[in-house]
């Protein structure tokens, strides 16, 4: 797969007069009057964090403002100590900037950060999706002047199918092979728990075995009231017992030594990338499930239309295509090219 070419159109066409109170930098977005950084990739004194994935949340910040759930995830993953929880719908004031956290629908605790200052409103979405997710609150569109969006699946080939039908395919494969198991690769934070909940929602209440790397995160989800049902370890269990069962592991364990203990697994993976055949083949996936925690092309473009910003900033992903889409509709847009975003396994 070829990487997209560098944008050839000069960016100054889209750039507005500087200085502005919000500044995009390769390592994050700086909110000058509040002296705070949004999702900084290097340690900062004051950080506003949209959600707990490693390409947005890092350890080592002086003080973090985030939702209670995101702070709990950061404490678990990066031992972040000091933080102020900001519940959805509430606001804090910092150096003349009003800062609110609004559900982004991406994973547990994920938020869009809404900043108001000098009569202008900026929404930084972090990562988001528009489809229902039983493990988190749905995305709420906030009309704004500057809309900062991701573009992980920013190409029209990415159109996620209905989640229910994908889960049904997983269950059909399971029932068709009672002597085997289905091993599903799913990102450890968010995708794994959502998949389990989607299965429960389709009436699948059998025990689900999970890789050791998922245990603590599943426990944390339970503390926040997400009932994941009967979860069991996949180690120290006789292979016989796992026949006809679903096993969930991080994608990296799919083809690794760990999976040798399983009874003739059918290898599945839950990710938006699975829409492209070659991607699935490269990972030796037999049952690709297009289940994504990111907005697909239609969701990205529908959301931009809905919040109707006077300017769109695109943080990461296939930004060139979304930039083109905005341009052809006479919408101002610019690509920020933030570094260190987009984890291949998280999609």
């Amino acid at each position, binding site marked *: 797969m070829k990487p997209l070419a560098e944008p050839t159109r000069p960016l100054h066409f889209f750039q507005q007069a500087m200085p502005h109170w919000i500044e995009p930098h390769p390592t994050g977005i700086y909110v000058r009057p509040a002296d705070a950084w949004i999702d900084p990739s290097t340690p900062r004194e004051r950080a506003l964090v949209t959600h707990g994935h490693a390409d947005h949340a890092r350890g080592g910040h002086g003080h973090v403002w985030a939702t209670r759930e995101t702070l709990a995830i950061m404490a678990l993953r990066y031992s972040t100590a000091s933080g102020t929880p900001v519940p959805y719908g509430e606001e804090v004031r910092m150096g003349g900037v009003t800062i609110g956290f609004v559900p982004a629908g991406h994973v547990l605790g994920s938020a869009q950060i809404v900043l108001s200052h000098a009569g202008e409103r900026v929404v930084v979405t972090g990562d988001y999706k528009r489809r229902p997710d039983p493990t988190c609150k749905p995305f709420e569109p906030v009309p704004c002047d500057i809309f900062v969006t991701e573009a992980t699946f920013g*190409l029209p*080939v990415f159109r996620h199918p209905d989640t229910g039908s994908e889960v049904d395919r997983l269950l059909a494969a399971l029932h068709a092979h009672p002597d085997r198991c289905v091993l599903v690769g799913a990102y450890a934070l968010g995708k794994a728990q959502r998949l389990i909940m989607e299965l429960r929602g389709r009436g699948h209440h059998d025990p689900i075995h999970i890789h050791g790397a998922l245990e603590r995160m599943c426990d944390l989800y339970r503390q926040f009231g997400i009932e994941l049902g009967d979860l069991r370890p996949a180690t120290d269990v006789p292979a016989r017992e796992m026949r006809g069962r679903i096993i969930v592991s991080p994608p990296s364990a799919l*083809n690794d*030594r*760990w999976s040798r203990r399983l009874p003739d697994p059918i290898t599945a993976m839950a990710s938006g990338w699975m829409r*492209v055949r070659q991607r699935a083949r490269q990972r*030796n996936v*037999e049952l690709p499930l297009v289940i994504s925690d990111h907005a697909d092309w239609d969701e990205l473009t529908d959301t931009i239309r809905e919040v109707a910003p006077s300017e769109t900033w695109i943080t990461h992903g296939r930004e060139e295509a979304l930039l083109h*889409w905005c341009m052809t509709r006479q919408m101002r847009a610019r690509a920020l090219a933030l570094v260190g975003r987009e984890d291949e396994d998280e999609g």
Partner: protein
Amino acid sequence: MRAFSQLLDGLVYTRSRNGKLDLIAHYMRTAPDPDRGWALAALTGNLDLNAVKASTIGAMARARTDPVLFEMSRDYVGDLAETVALLWPRAEGQAEEVDDATLTLSAIVDRLHAVSRASAPAVLAGMMDHLDASGRFALLKLATGGLRVGISARLAKTGFAQAFDLDVDEVEECWHALAPPYTDLFRWAEGKADRPDPAGTPFFRPFMLAHPLEAESVDLDHYAAEWKWDGIRVQIVGTGRETRLYSRAGDDITATFPDIAQAFRHHAVLDGELLVKGEFQGGEAASFNALQQRLGRKAVTARMMSDYPAFVRLYDILLDGENDLRALPWAQRRAALETTVPALDPDRFDISALIEAPDFETLAGIRAGARDASIEGVMLKRRDSPYVAGRKAALWYKWKRDPLTADCVMMYAQRGHGKRSSFYSDYTFGCWTQDGELLPVGKAYSGFSDEELKWLDRFVRTNTVNRFGPVREVEKSLVLEVAFDSIHDSKRHKSGLAMRFPRIARIRRDKPANEADTVAGLRRLVS
């Protein structure tokens, strides 16, 4: 269409042969007529449609989408049909992407049969609107004339046979009496009609195969000896009106070798080795490398045919006219073959000579003395054996030459597929140049035991120095003794060498890497 597009998806993602057979069998049992017949035709490469050009597909997509976004998408996805299938916009007012079940596979085939170059874009676009992404992909693959789901015609027929508890060879025997959508075949398979009569059509008969010789010797009073030629096994089926060529897998390869088919006007079924003329193999045939230039081509140019002229070295006769000779002893069939061959075009056909030896030891000496690397070894055929399908014990033996070996150094490793997907089981190995550089000379993924595989896997994991996607580069410290049947010049590799059938013979933990063989040393073994 949904059942068919899901079958294709399943075949793309399923690695194991049995898994693929199960998918095909399930579809053949459950899909309605005539859909399943058209599917069988598509899977066996017998669906003849007016192929729509790739440029037509591209133009159709550009008319429906933003051309810039289309090009960006194509850059990202790679495959044209897949790109168009994925980004095809939903029809007006359609909330989810669905196959609305208004189009059956047979309806699609009917429309593609009737389509002209001018009407193709509109006809295709009209069908695309009723399908989901998988269905659109299947449609575009059908329309452009190549499913490319990695299965042979034989595998598709085997899946069909499995669906109805039939013997695949019986299916094969009547196959060429039939035409898509194979209604009579399905009626027979379901016990509703007699088996279709293949008389008068040039159909494939299953090959007789050989076991490797394991015994110390055989009695030459009972066995005849021939050279084992290094070409491809081919069956020539002529009815007098028509001639077809079949490969070992039962695939029709007539179009790849029209020079052979046109030269054969007899009413007979013959078995032999397809070769390209050259200086090897007794002074008449070229090495397998030359033959490879002609393999796998759907159409062949006059230039290819004159640069690499093909001929067949015959060694058996199955039918002489309507006369089935398969039940006769080999000796009688051989006599019939010897009377048939002189009547054939000597430019295209000759007979595989017998090796005359009074006893087995003499034969062993002759075999050892055959320096020509394009001879694979010796065939031993029981003089009283009938011609039977498959591998029957003690009738035919292949007695391959002892392999060549070289000590090589492991350089890279890659994970295997299926059951081996968690193991680094594919190894690239190299030999030394005069400047002390290692150059890759081959790649092998067999020859070791399960225990050895575990050891090799552990070696790769603990000695990785670099990763390139799925490939690991390892510390150049492990010597592998590699066995191979022959070695040839090759422009594809930097070392200029390519091995045939390389496999790992032994792991030489005792040998230091700097004592492994040199590229120059290997070059001396080139045939």
